[in-house]
């Protein structure tokens, strides 16, 4: 059996461009899904039952269905309902953001409800309003507490972006899989793909470990 790595080397710029798309999609998704998750968490803790129910329905839909289905659905079905045609990239971003926002909202909600009632009472007793207590006392502590969980979600997201290749977004997976189909150099291309994902993913996983240690809750 002979290997021909030239197929990888010749197409390295293309693969790196795919890798860049993967990173950009991860960053953009998380940048939107953090405020999105906070908003959903706040809505789910709302005193208004209808608001709470709507947010819960959204979260439970995106948590309980496969991401790949959500991407297909956003790509093929949503344009029919809304009469808009989104680019593949925008579709991927919308689909991933909805999905990760749903997960982040659960993370934030857990962080917010993990704080004792006493912290609320201490703020209220000083004469603060509930929003003041929420933003100055509760939220900063909740975010610190859930940082490790958010970091884990980040790493999952980084890998899950590979699913957007099914709607022809030219991320690392899409580029690599197309190269494989065109050249039939399955071993070389898939190995290069694995190496690139690992080179990018491993430092992130290590960073997450560090965050877990650094932000352990100390009471």
């Amino acid at each position, binding site marked *: 059996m002979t290997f021909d790595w030239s197929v990888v080397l010749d197409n390295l710029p293309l693969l790196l461009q795919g890798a860049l798309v993967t990173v950009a999609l991860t960053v953009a998704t998380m940048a939107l899904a953090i405020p999105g998750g906070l908003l959903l968490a706040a809505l789910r803790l709302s005193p208004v039952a209808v608001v709470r129910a709507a947010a819960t329905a959204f979260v439970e839909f995106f948590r309980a269905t496969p991401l790949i289905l959500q991407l297909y659905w956003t790509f093929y079905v949503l344009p029919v309902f809304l009469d808009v045609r989104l680019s593949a990239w925008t579709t991927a971003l919308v689909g991933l953001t909805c999905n990760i926002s749903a997960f982040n909202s659960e993370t934030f909600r857990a962080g917010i409800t993990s704080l004792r009632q006493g*912290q609320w009472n201490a703020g209220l*007793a000083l*004469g603060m309003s509930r929003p003041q207590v929420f933003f*100055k006392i509760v939220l900063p502590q909740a975010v*610190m507490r859930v940082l490790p969980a958010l970091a884990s979600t980040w790493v999952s997201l980084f890998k899950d972006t590979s699913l957007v290749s099914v709607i022809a977004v030219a991320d690392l997976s899409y580029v690599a899989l197309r190269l494989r189909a065109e050249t039939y150099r399955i071993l070389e291309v898939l190995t290069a793909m694995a190496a690139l994902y690992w080179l990018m993913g491993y430092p992130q996983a290590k960073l997450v470990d560090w965050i877990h240690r650094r932000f352990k809750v100390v009471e």
Partner: protein
Amino acid sequence: MTDRPILRVLDLVKSYSGQRAVDGVSLEVRQREVVCLIGPSGSGKSTFLRCLNALERADSGEVQFAGELMDPGRRDIRQLRRRMGMVFQNFELFPHLTALRNVAIGPVTVLGAARAQADVLARELLRKVGLADHALKHPAQLSGGQQQRVAIARALAMSPELMLFDEPTSALDPETVGEVLSVMKALADEGMTMVVVTHEMDFARRVGERIVVFDRGRVIEAGTPRQIFEAPRVARTREFLSHLGWHGESTVPAEPG
């Protein structure tokens, strides 16, 4: 003790799932008075205290503070609440903030004070409770007694007209109880009006001007420290005090004459 009442509680009732935690309590507190609430755990003292600044909504009865009704539903409840300071059993300092910021956050957030000005006040108050050197530490770096003193400074930063203490020394190591009690004693000596829920009978006897005994959500006896600790009239009071190992006759020296 001719000052007029600052706090008037009338027939307060508060239930949790059918259980009456506070069962028709009335109380008046005059300005500059120190009232100690004592009684067994679960007798409704802490719930009663939280009703005073409307952190809890009473089922019936009313609380009047400086002539205003402490109704959690009224729009300006925050303006009234901030005039009462509250100190909690578990300190409830804000762990993400330094001692200085914990003390300054009230004036900055609620009163709109400038940060520099609030910091000056906060440093002054931390000095007052003996923690001038700890201003930039976070709560986790402080002992329990130090945390509780920061919490007292935090409440004082709002210049309250009345201070509520909810078992302020119950969560402390024995060796740090004294430093908190002496800060409270100094506060009482300055003329602060205080309502103190406590299990520290010695503090209640020395600093309290009136002792109110709670049992099962009711006030079963009230009077001067001497009356309560030396000659309690109600059997349940005697029982409670002796459970704590308090025997008035043996620890209070006999009065001449």
